[in-house]
């Protein structure tokens, strides 16, 4: 009797331990996942800002000449609208050959014809919706007379 009583107590304890542990671990793992996603988003934003800055300084250094920008930036290609586009994979390496399967981010330089250009970095949407704009600036080339 006593042995059966102690066994049932241990069983109850184990059941409660497992129940409580499963609830707490589910919450903690959720927190881990959220922090991982936050970290990934901020990392992508940081890289995006760096790529846009690089493109902006390149654009300013050649006085807004898109052909020279295309020759400097690795993997740059023209779009149908006359903009310059540089594609990057998930590790922010430039894509030399355009491949929709690998492209995750891309930077677009859109000149407005007055020497200024909008430079933006986008993240390709997974569900073929409108791509997400990570960061965007407007730069103007200074053309010394």
């Amino acid at each position: 009797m006593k042995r059966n009583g102690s066994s049932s107590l241990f069983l109850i304890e184990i059941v409660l331990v497992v129940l409580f542990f499963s609830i707490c671990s589910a919450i903690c793992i959720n927190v881990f996942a959220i922090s991982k996603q936050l970290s990934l988003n901020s990392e992508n934003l940081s890289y995006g800002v760096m790529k846009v800055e690089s493109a902006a300084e390149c654009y300013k250094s050649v006085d807004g000449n898109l052909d020279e920008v295309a020759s400097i930036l690795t993997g740059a290609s023209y779009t149908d609208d006359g903009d310059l586009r540089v594609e990057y994979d998930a590790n922010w390496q430039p894509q030399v050959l355009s491949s929709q399967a690998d492209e995750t981010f891309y930077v677009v330089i859109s000149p407005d014809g007055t020497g200024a250009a909008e430079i933006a970095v986008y993240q390709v949407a997974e569900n073929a919706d409108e791509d997400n704009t990570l960061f965007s600036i407007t730069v103007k080339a200074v053309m010394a007379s």
Partner: protein
Amino acid sequence: MNGNNNNNRKPTVINVGGASLMMLFAVLCLTVFSVLSLVYSNYQVKLTEKAVLATENYYAADTSAAEIFEALQNGDLSEATVTEENGITYYSYSVTVDADQTLDVVVANNGGALTIESWKVVNNAAEVNLFDDDAFNLWDGN
């Protein structure tokens, strides 16, 4: 005999043994590390947002400065301060980057051709001279 069993019967209580202690320890570790990772990720997000804001402010000021330079090239001197030195005319102007920084530009007009002499971000925050005796409120023993 049955009566004795009824008198000696104790109420069922929840037993706290080794398994419970180990579970408490594991949950404590999980909680601490999850909170730590969340705090660090939050810090990374805030740092990135500051960098984004700083970059946006700089390029907005840079674009404004470029537009003023273009206006100077077209003969519009309303945004610049004109000075003359050694026969060369200098145009100076500043564009605010943020609360503590300005983009200061100096352009030289040497025979009609404008050249950029200086294009730099200057920090205008109040300076603290670390070598002043009153720079830090240190206890002197009194």
